[in-house]
């Protein structure tokens, strides 16, 4: 079971990233849960200051941008 975390305060960009992440899970055909981290302390604690951030299995893979579902799927398959 993989874990994908979307770091963001619930802004429009964060929701778009979450949607992309969910689509990526389907594309990659892996089993993963997608969580949304909204606590700013937690976000900064992960080393991210520009939201939205994306964390896969505890590793920050992007910050301050919205990677496409294809990109996220590639990361999922890679890890």
């Amino acid at each position: 079971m993989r874990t994908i975390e979307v770091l963001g305060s619930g802004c429009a960009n964060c929701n778009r990233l979450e949607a992309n992440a969910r689509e990526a899970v389907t594309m990659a055909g892996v089993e993963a849960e997608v969580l949304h981290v909204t606590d700013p302390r937690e976000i900064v604690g992960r080393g991210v200051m520009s939201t939205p951030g994306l964390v896969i299995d505890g590793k920050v893979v992007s910050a301050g941008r919205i990677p496409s579902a294809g990109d996220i799927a590639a990361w999922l398959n890679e890890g």
Partner: protein
Amino acid sequence: MTTTALSRPGRFPRLPLPVVAGAAAAAWLVAWIVEAPAADWFTFSVLNLEHGSHFGEAVGFFLEDMPKVLLLLSGIVTVVTLIRSFFPPERIRPLLVGRGLLPGSLAAAGVGVITPFCSCSAVPLFIGFVEAGVPLGVTFAFLISSPMVNEVALVMLWGLFGPWIALAYMDAGLTVAVVGGLIIGKLGLERYVEDYVWELQGRPSTAIVVKLSWSDRLTDALAYTRTLVRKLLPYLVVGIGLGALIHGYAPTDLVAAIGGRSNPLAVPLVVLMAVPMYSNAAGTIPIVQALLGKGMPLGTTLAFMMAVTAISLPEFVILRRVMKLPLLAVFIGVVSTGIIGIGYLFNFLAN
């Protein structure tokens, strides 16, 4: 502080990236050159409107300005977003730690120009700066400068009104940011930062900078430009339409009566008007253009533009999560006073 770099898989575009970028740049340049004569020809030869008539001038203004602003906006935002992708706050923060108040505020206001800023990131940014030991005043210098002075606004001002107004705007914005940072730093308002932010200070902090390929950066830049232009389009149509009406019909005294030199309260008035409006700096340009063209003085116009971008209610609501009310009030007070002061100063200097 450590900086971790992560690699990521690259993606290959169908055509070589330099070819696509070069072709796009060439097309942009051609459009930029033929745009004004084409609009002129269309208005006065094809539509056969009369030169000097109210209607003809209004239509000509709209047809010339709409593509011009769209071209400027899309071209500049793409290039600027590309440049900005090299300066995320995670990379900027180490430059601001452990500096004195004045050098720190100067540096923060300066890097605020190139760092991307989104009000939804304001809270993690604030916490990230404070916990790493960036002084409070320096953090505020950044928070003021980043949304207000940005390259998009500067290049748009440059393209439409020439270098002097662009430089004036930059100087004004940087001054407000540095002075604001100094004042907030000197006042010693640390106790008005929400307590939990301080509890985080001093924990080992790792700012993560993810490596990006050129293809990533370009894709992001184009996607961002598309979103921004789409978001701003209605405002541009209204703004330029308004500008066109003013250009063709409005007597100059109307604008002069409200915003002109004869009204000593014009500067605070436009700042107050700007509070409920919030827009990206670029979105205010058509309105600024119409106002300047109708004789609103430079200082009043710049004050309006700065207020629209820097004084934003939604951002204050967001920032309330990390600062107590007195600090927020000082922040708003310092910024509005600074903007009003700058407005008066420029009106005085331009006299």
